[in-house]
C-alpha cells in the first residue's frame, strides 16, 4: 500500500513538468467568441526546431492586435479576439489547426496565416473551397500571386520570385551594373524542400538573361551538416552564395564559410535566413553577412513605441520584451498591420462588425496601404506601400538589404524593385499550368468564383 502511494507520488512528480508546460501555454486555451467580436485564428509554432520564428512572428502579430484593443478599443470599435493552435511547423498539424479554427466566431475565420510554405500548399484547395483567404506573407506558393487562378491565396507584399530578382538587382549594383553580371558564378544553396526549390526556375531564367552561371546545391534536411557542400563551394569558387535555408540550416553556412575563408559579405540570405536567431548562434562568423528583408528592423517606429507603452507597459506582452524590435517580431507587426488594414477596409463596405472570409477576400483584393496611411499607423520605414488587385495578390514586390554587424541588423539599401515584368510573365505561365492541371477556369473579373 505504502509502495503504491510512493509510486503514485513519483508519477505525480513526473507529471509536474507537463502541467507546467500546459500552464505556460495558457494562451493556447480555446476562447469563447461573442457575436460582436472579431475572431482571428493564430497558427503558431512555439515548439520544435523553428519555435523562435513561430513565437516571434505570431507574438508580434498578437501584440499588434492587443495594441488596437488597448489603445483604440478594438478595430473600429470591434474587439479582436484570437486563439492559438500549435502546428510545430508540421503540415498535418497545420491542417488540423485550420479545421479546428475555421468555423470559430459568428462569421467563421476571416483569414488564415499558415506561417509555413508546406501548410500553405496543403491548404490551397481546401481554403478556396471554404472561401477563407490564406495570407502567406513573404512565403508560400509564388504563382498564387495570380489572383485569376488563386482567388483565395495571397502571397502579399513580396513573393519569392520577386525577392530573387531583387537579389540579382542588388548583386548587379554591388558588381557595378547589370552588364557585370555576365560571367559571375552564383551558388544557390537551398534546402531540399518545396520552399527551397521554389526559386530555381527564376534563377535559371535570370542566369540565361544576364549571362551568369548559377549552381543549385541542395541541402538535405535538417541541414545541420553542410561540410561537403561547402567543400564543393570552395571548388566552384563562386562570386556570391545565396543562402536559402530555414532555421538552423541558415546558421550552418556562416560557420562553414568562415572555415573555408569565404567572405560573409558575399553570402546573400533569403529573409527567412535574416533574423537575429540565424546569426547569433554563428557568433563572429556571422559578421558582415547580408540578407534580404521586406520590412524595417529595430524599435524606432511609433507603432513599436506604442506597443511598448500600451501592451508591454501593462504587462500584456506576448513574448519577452527583449525581442521587441527583432526581425521576427517586426515581421509579426507587418502581418498585423496588413491583416488589420484589410479588415478596416472591409468595415467600410460591410459595416463595423466582425468580418467573414469572403468579405476579407474582397478587402485583400482591394488593399491600398499608401505612404500617408503608413505614416498614420506609425510605421514609416517599417513597411513599404502595398496595393493589390483581383489579378495581383502580391501588391508590392520591393525588398531591402540588411547586414549583420555583430550586434544588430543594419539596413544597407533602399527599397529595391524586382524585375516585375520577368516575374509577372513567369507567374502567368506557372499559374496557367496549374489551372490546366487542376481544371480551373481562370477568373475574368473580380466577382467570378466568389
Amino acid at each position, binding site marked *: 500500500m505504502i509502495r503504491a502511494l510512493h*509510486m503514485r507520488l*513519483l*508519477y505525480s*512528480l*513526473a507529471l509536474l*513538468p*507537463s502541467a*507546467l*508546460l500546459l500552464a*505556460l501555454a495558457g494562451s493556447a486555451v480555446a476562447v469563447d467568441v461573442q457575436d460582436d467580436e472579431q475572431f482571428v485564428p493564430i497558427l503558431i509554432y*512555439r*515548439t*520544435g*526546431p523553428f*519555435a*523562435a520564428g513561430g*513565437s516571434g512572428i505570431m507574438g508580434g502579430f498578437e501584440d499588434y492586435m492587443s495594441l488596437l484593443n488597448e489603445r483604440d478599443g478594438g478595430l473600429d470599435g470591434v474587439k479582436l479576439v484570437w486563439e492559438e493552435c500549435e502546428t510545430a511547423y508540421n503540415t498535418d498539424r497545420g491542417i488540423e489547426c485550420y479545421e479546428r479554427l475555421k468555423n470559430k466566431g459568428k462569421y467563421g475565420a476571416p483569414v488564415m496565416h499558415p506561417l509555413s510554405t508546406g501548410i500553405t500548399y496543403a491548404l490551397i484547395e481546401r481554403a478556396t473551397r471554404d472561401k477563407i483567404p490564406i495570407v502567406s506573407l513573404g512565403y508560400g506558393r509564388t504563382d498564387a500571386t495570380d489572383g485569376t487562378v488563386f482567388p483565395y491565396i495571397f502571397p502579399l507584399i513580396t513573393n519569392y520570385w520577386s525577392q530573387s530578382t531583387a537579389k540579382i538587382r542588388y548583386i548587379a549594383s554591388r558588381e557595378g551594373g547589370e552588364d557585370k553580371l555576365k560571367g559571375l558564378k552564383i551558388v544557390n544553396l537551398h534546402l*531540399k524542400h518545396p520552399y527551397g526549390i521554389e526559386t530555381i526556375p527564376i534563377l535559371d531564367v535570370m542566369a540565361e538573361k544576364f549571362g551568369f552561371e548559377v549552381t543549385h*546545391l*541542395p*541541402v*538535405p*534536411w*535538417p541541414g*545541420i*551538416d553542410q*561540410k*561537403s*557542400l561547402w*567543400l*564543393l563551394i*570552395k*571548388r566552384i569558387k563562386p562570386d556570391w552564395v545565396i543562402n536559402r535555408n530555414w*532555421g*538552423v540550416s541558415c*546558421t*550552418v553556412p556562416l*560557420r562553414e564559410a*568562415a*572555415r*573555408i*575563408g569565404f567572405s560573409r559579405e558575399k553570402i546573400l540570405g533569403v529573409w527567412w535566413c535574416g533574423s537575429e*536567431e540565424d546569426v*547569433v*548562434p*554563428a*557568433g*563572429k*562568423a556571422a559578421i558582415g553577412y547580408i540578407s534580404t528583408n521586406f520590412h524595417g528592423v529595430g524599435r524606432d517606429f511609433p507603432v513599436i513605441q506604442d506597443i511598448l507603452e500600451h501592451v508591454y507597459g501593462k504587462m500584456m506582452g506576448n513574448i*519577452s520584451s527583449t*525581442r521587441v524590435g527583432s526581425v521576427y517580431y517586426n515581421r509579426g507587426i507587418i502581418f498585423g498591420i496588413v491583416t488589420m488594414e484589410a479588415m478596416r477596409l472591409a468595415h467600410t463596405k460591410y459595416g463595423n462588425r466582425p468580418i467573414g472570409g469572403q468579405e476579407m477576400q474582397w478587402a485583400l483584393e482591394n488593399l491600398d496601404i499608401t505612404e500617408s496611411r503608413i505614416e498614420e499607423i506609425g510605421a514609416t520605414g517599417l513597411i513599404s506601400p502595398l496595393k493589390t488587385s483581383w489579378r495581383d495578390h502580391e501588391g508590392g514586390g520591393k525588398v531591402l538589404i540588411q547586414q549583420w554587424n555583430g550586434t544588430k541588423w543594419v539596413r544597407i539599401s533602399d527599397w529595391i524593385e524586382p524585375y516585375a515584368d520577368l516575374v509577372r510573365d513567369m507567374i502567368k505561365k506557372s499559374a496557367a499550368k496549374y489551372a490546366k492541371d487542376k481544371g480551373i477556369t481562370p477568373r475574368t473579373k473580380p466577382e467570378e468564383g466568389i
Partner: protein
Amino acid sequence: MVDEFWFAMEVLISGLLQGFMYSLVAIGFVLIIKSSGVFNFAQGSMCLFAALGFVSFWEAGLNFWVALGLALVMMIVLAVVIERVVLRPLVARPPLILFMATIGLAFLLEGLAQALWGTQPHGLELGIPDSPLEGLPVDISQFELFAAAISLLLVLALVIFFHRTRVGRALRAVSDDHEAAMSVGISLQMMWGITWAIAGGVALVAGIMWGTRLGVQYSLTLIVLKALAVLILGGFNSITGAVVAGLIIGGSEKLVEVYLNIIFGIGGVESFFAYALAMFVLLFRPYGLFGDEIIDRV
C-alpha cells in the same frame, strides 16, 4: 592533378573529423544499451537539455568551469530522477516498454528545456577558432581537431572505466546478465543510475561541441540522426565500434556527396547514404562491426 589529390584529401579528412562529432553522440546511446539493454530515444534531448542548461548558467555570469560543473550536477540529478521515476517501475518489463518510456522522456525533456530556458538560440564560443590551421596543403579546422581530441579522450576514459574499475566491471556484469549480476549483490538500480549519469555527462560534452557549431538550440536534438547510423554500423554495445563507425560514415559520406555531385551532378545523398551503408554492412555482420553477437540458450 596535385590540387585534385589535396582536394580529395581535404574531403576525406573533413569527413573523418565530422565522424568524431557523430561518435560523440553515438557513445551516449552505447553506454545505456551496454548497461541496461535500453535504446535511449531521449539521448538527443539530453544533449539539448545539458547544453541549454550549461549555456544558461554561463550566460548568467557564472565562471565557465562552475557553469560546466553545475550542468554536470544537473545531469546527474536528472539521471537519478529518470532512474527513480521512469526506469525503476519498469524493471523486468520487455525492452520495448523501456524504449517507449524513453520516447516519452524525449518529448518531456524537450518541452521542459524550452519552458525553462526559452526557444531562443544561444551562441556558444569556446575560444577555439573554427578556422583552418596554417601551413598545411589542406584546410583543417582547429575546432574540429579539438573536438576529435575530446572524443578520443572520452573514449579512452570510458574504456578504462569499464575495464579497470570495480563499478565499470559491475556495469559490464549487469549488461551481460541482469539476474546473475543481482544474485552476486550488484544493485541494478545503482548501476542504472550511474550509467544514466555518465550518459548525461557524455550528452553534455556532445551538446557543447555541437552547440558550438550550430548554436545551442532545439535543433541539437537532430544530431542523433547520423548517430543512429553510426550505432547500427558500429554495433549497439561497442564504444570502439561507435568511434570506428563514426569515422567510416563521416569519411565515406563526404566523399560520396562531393564526388557524386562533381561527376554526375547528383546532390543531397548525404542524408541517407549513412543508413544505406549501415544496412549493407548488416547483411554481412548483423550485430554491426564491433557489436557482441547475442547467443540465446534454448
